[in-house]
């Protein structure tokens, strides 16, 4: 008989129960299977009502983030062989409301992401005839790491500050704001400062650092936030010491 592995999966049906419960499934164990493959097997063969998000299966779309044995993981990049022969527990991402089974409600993150204006802001747009905004490789290097974010929200699930204070803007949104702040083509740092320098912005972060540990793209949101704290402090000192310089 083929080898199998146990999966304990959170089931939550808002129509039938008020509290989520774990359901056990036995799925074939294959060395090349990731947790997402096992969930797809359950949906195809064992219980078609299981709900979860996924799309690209290659660590790009950021849809399949879940808690695997208590750790926030992209299930498409987490192999069953890391846990076999023990059971694998799959739960919805922590710190978010659960809509059904493994599906979380992410509007809060989307609203915050938009708030920090993660796009290039120019005081005056060049016309197309004037050509593109040029950038050197070292200018690209300055922000490239932060631009790798795939909005998978694993960092929000790892952040105890976000868990305790849902108003906190959170790691990914701040890292993306910083990505544009240090982009040589951008001129919107002052606009973003108003949102980021609030208590719910960078100052809410206490530098636990777990966001960086769980990031599947090595973005280092914790680093981005601390670097922005330094920038904000320097700006504050400048505004106090040289009030005439403020614009």
């Amino acid at each position: 008989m083929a080898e199998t592995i146990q999966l304990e999966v959170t089931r939550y049906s808002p129509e039938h129960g008020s509290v989520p419960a774990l359901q056990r499934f036995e799925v074939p164990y294959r060395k090349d299977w990731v947790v997402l493959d096992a969930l797809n097997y359950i949906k195809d063969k064992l219980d078609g009502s299981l709900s979860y998000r996924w799309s690209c299966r290659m660590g790009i779309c950021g849809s399949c983030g879940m808690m695997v044995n208590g750790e926030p993981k992209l299930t498409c990049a987490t192999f069953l062989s890391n846990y076999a022969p023990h059971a694998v527990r799959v739960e919805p991402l922590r710190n978010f409301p659960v809509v059904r089974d493994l599906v979380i409600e992410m509007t809060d993150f989307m609203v915050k992401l938009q708030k920090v204006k993660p796009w290039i802001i120019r005081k005056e747009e060049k016309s197309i005839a004037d050509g593109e905004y040029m950038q050197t490789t070292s200018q690209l290097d300055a922000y490239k790491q932060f631009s790798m974010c795939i909005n998978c929200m694993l960092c929000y699930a790892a952040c105890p500050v976000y868990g305790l204070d849902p108003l906190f803007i959170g790691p990914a949104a701040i890292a993306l704001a910083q990505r544009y702040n240090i982009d040589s083509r951008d001129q919107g740092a002052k606009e973003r400062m108003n949102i980021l320098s609030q208590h719910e912005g960078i100052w809410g972060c206490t530098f636990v650092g777990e966001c960086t540990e769980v990031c599947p793209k090595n973005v280092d949101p914790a680093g981005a936030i601390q670097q922005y704290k330094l920038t904000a402090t320097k700006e504050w000192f400048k505004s106090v010491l040289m009030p005439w310089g403020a614009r």
Partner: protein
Amino acid sequence: MTPHETNRATQYTLYHPRWYRTRVSTYWWLRKWCYLKFVLRELSSVFVAYFVVITLLQIHSLSRGPEAYARFERLMHNPLVIALSAISLLFVLFHTITWFNLAPRAIVVRLGGMRIPDILIAGSNYVAWLMISAAVAWFILR
């Protein structure tokens, strides 16, 4: 469900009775070593403050003459105070080392288009620590 309720359910609201929300446990910081380490690092600030107060008291008693300073020394020789100082020393070392190691994450220095390696940023903190400690030791023990 009435049409009115259906309409409401499709809108995004902060309060949604059908979403399940877990509460963060009061003991969340015991769940993982890294969370506990973070809480200990925060707690270590109390012991840093304790050493600052002790140093201020020491300078104050020094300024009030030999008798006051002898009283201060007697207080510091109390076994309870020695135990507290020993625990504080451990916490202050923990505080210093963890923060020095985190410094490269916050301080990004670029020279000639290259980011200065983390070890140099953290290392310069350790070197400054050693030099200042050596200067203080020389000043007191000479």
